[in-house]
């Protein structure tokens, strides 16, 4: 066997067997249950799933901003080989601030309402390096210009409440990128923004990532965002990654019944919509078998009820946590499922 001409580059981010729990005296919520994935240099990976699937807890764990009572109970988060999980807070802050840029869903929650924008740039930059006010100002102006702010001088002098939603998100992106991070984590960065603004913000984030060869983890509930902006996708359900692989493969030939159901719920003209059946497990007590068992249209394998399926490779770089092969029973690509002949 001939050796590969170039060995695949080591992943920038490697999450292995991550578990996150939210414990209170009365109960424990198993929010993330053994999630493993990696992101290579320069790659944009989408993380998609519905409310309560654990995508936000996963992201918060990755960037070390999990809020109590949430905590990582198991697993590792390696950035460039360094495990961030047990790092002392000071060191974690240094690495995280400089290497990971975070763009949250609500820009107004991320900006300090009582500090001028210029002061917020100074705080971010000064927590990681020295800088004279004039130089910091120049850096901030250049960054605001790069994110498409028409009048950066005025924005720098002003406060968050003077900005529109789209402008505020641009400022947050500028703050996230100002230390030149190698990994950008964006958690629903355009939810709540208008369609035309959403498109501009996503284009901006992508361009800023691409020009510097940054890696990106893009969390979303919108299949369209994944389809148009990501190269690989992770599908989460009940705190687990149930499928992962190249976007073109996963969205056209899903191997997990949950992914298939999610795609069938995207509204399209003249096609029937298929809503969800059954219920999502509560995450207070994890079910013994497959977490998707209660809603699954395909369950048949005796192991479905008793054994939680592990991710297995179903195609090149394409993984799914399922005991059987749904492809065999599927007449057409799910993106066209409703228009299949004979379907009604």
């Amino acid at each position, binding site marked *: 066997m001939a050796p590969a001409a170039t060995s695949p580059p080591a992943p920038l981010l490697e999450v292995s067997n991550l578990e996150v729990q939210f414990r209170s005296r009365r109960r424990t919520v198993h929010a993330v249950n053994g999630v493993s994935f990696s992101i290579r240099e320069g790659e944009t990976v989408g993380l998609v799933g*519905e*409310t309560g699937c654990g995508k936000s807890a996963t992201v918060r764990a990755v960037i070390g901003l999990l809020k109590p009572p949430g905590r990582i109970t198991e697993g590792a988060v390696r950035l460039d080989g360094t495990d961030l999980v047990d790092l002392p807070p000071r060191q974690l802050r240094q690495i995280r601030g400089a290497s990971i840029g975070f763009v949250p869903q609500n820009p107004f929650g991320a900006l300090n309402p009582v500090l001028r924008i210029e002061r917020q740039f100074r705080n971010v930059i000064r927590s990681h390096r020295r800088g004279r006010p004039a130089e910091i100002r120049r850096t901030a102006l250049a960054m605001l210009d790069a994110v498409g702010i028409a009048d950066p001088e005025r924005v720098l002098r002003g406060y968050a409440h003077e900005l*529109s939603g789209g402008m505020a998100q641009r400022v947050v992106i500028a703050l996230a990128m100002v230390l030149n991070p190698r990994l950008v984590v964006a958690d629903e960065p355009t939810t709540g923004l*208008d*369609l*035309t*603004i*959403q*498109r*501009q913000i996503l*284009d901006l984030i992508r361009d800023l990532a691409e020009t510097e060869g940054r890696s990106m983890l893009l969390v979303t*509930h*919108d*299949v*369209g*965002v*994944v*389809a*148009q902006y990501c190269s690989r996708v992770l599908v989460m359900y009940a705190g687990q990654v149930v499928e992962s692989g190249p*976007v*073109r493969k996963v*969205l*056209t030939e899903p191997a997990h019944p949950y992914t298939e*159901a*999610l*795609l*069938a*719920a*995207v*509204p*399209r*003209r003249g*096609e029937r*919509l*298929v*809503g*969800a059946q059954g219920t999502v497990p509560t995450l207070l007590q994890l079910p013994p078998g497959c977490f998707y068992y209660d809603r699954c249209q395909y369950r048949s394998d005796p192991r479905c009820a008793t054994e939680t399926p592990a991710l297995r490779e179903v195609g090149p770089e394409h993984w799914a946590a399922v005991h059987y092969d749904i492809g065999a029973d599927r007449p057409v690509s799910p*993106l066209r499922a409703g228009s299949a002949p004979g379907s009604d």
Partner: protein
Amino acid sequence: MALVTLSGVRKTFRRGRSQVHAVNGVDLHIEPGETLALIGESGSGKSTVGRLALGLLQPDEGTVVVDGHHLEQLDRKALQAARRNMTIVFQEPFQSLDPLMSVGRIIEEPVVIHEPSLTPAERRERVEDTMRRVILDPGLYERRPRELSGGQQQRVGVARAIVTGPKFVVLDEPTSSLDLSVQAGILELLANLQQELDLAYLFISHDIGTVDFFSDRVAVMYLGQVVETGPKAAVLDTPRHPYTEALLSAALSADPTEQPAHISLTGDIPSPTELPEGCFFYSRCGYRGDPRCATENPPLREVTPGHWVATFCDVGSTTPDG
């Protein structure tokens, strides 16, 4: 005859010393049993139009006729009586349900108001029938809204809207706060109810995919005006207004093999406190050229049967078909 007709409707709100011109001369009509989708971005005035169509707001100018009643001429009592025929489903199901009331009482309330002659037993029967109709277990009658899932809460909102047997329902972004799989169930339900009950819907939405799935005709709003309206396929497949064209091109296809070209708009929507002279879209338009664009507000003109557009330019003739 149209069930709902808005003619020349204007609405201005006062904000401090300035005037916010929310709706600036809107003409719309909705036929019995059809869905008119109203799309546009924040601040385009689509929710205000929804409230005007229900008589929840009074227009400053123009008329609103629903089922033969001129809403702006009705007194309080007559308007309340007319409300039996026209209802609304709100965007945030939880926030639109009284947290202290049981699910059953929430659904029952409109019946108490509009059909006072019914006995409690008859009302209970009506509520339980309606719950079954929206696929909500009547066993949930005594529950509070917070005990229900988001999808169940929205089914309560739908049940409350249809319990008096209306002909016209405004759906104000009814699924935008719901997950995809839950949204699918609600849209399916609304489509089935429309068929069974011959409901006319004004479907306010910013999601093009949902509009494409759900509506018969589409009206596109920009800065308080309808800039384009027509049959769904005509508007969505062959948009003739430059704003519609840009808006549609910003929608993200869920099919990774489709990557339609995106027309990026520059600048922001002008302030509704100071309406521009000329075409409201002038400052962001890539097609402006006609001398009238800067000075005259273009009226709607019919470009193909039923397809109306408010422009001086012609998008359809200068772009390759999409």
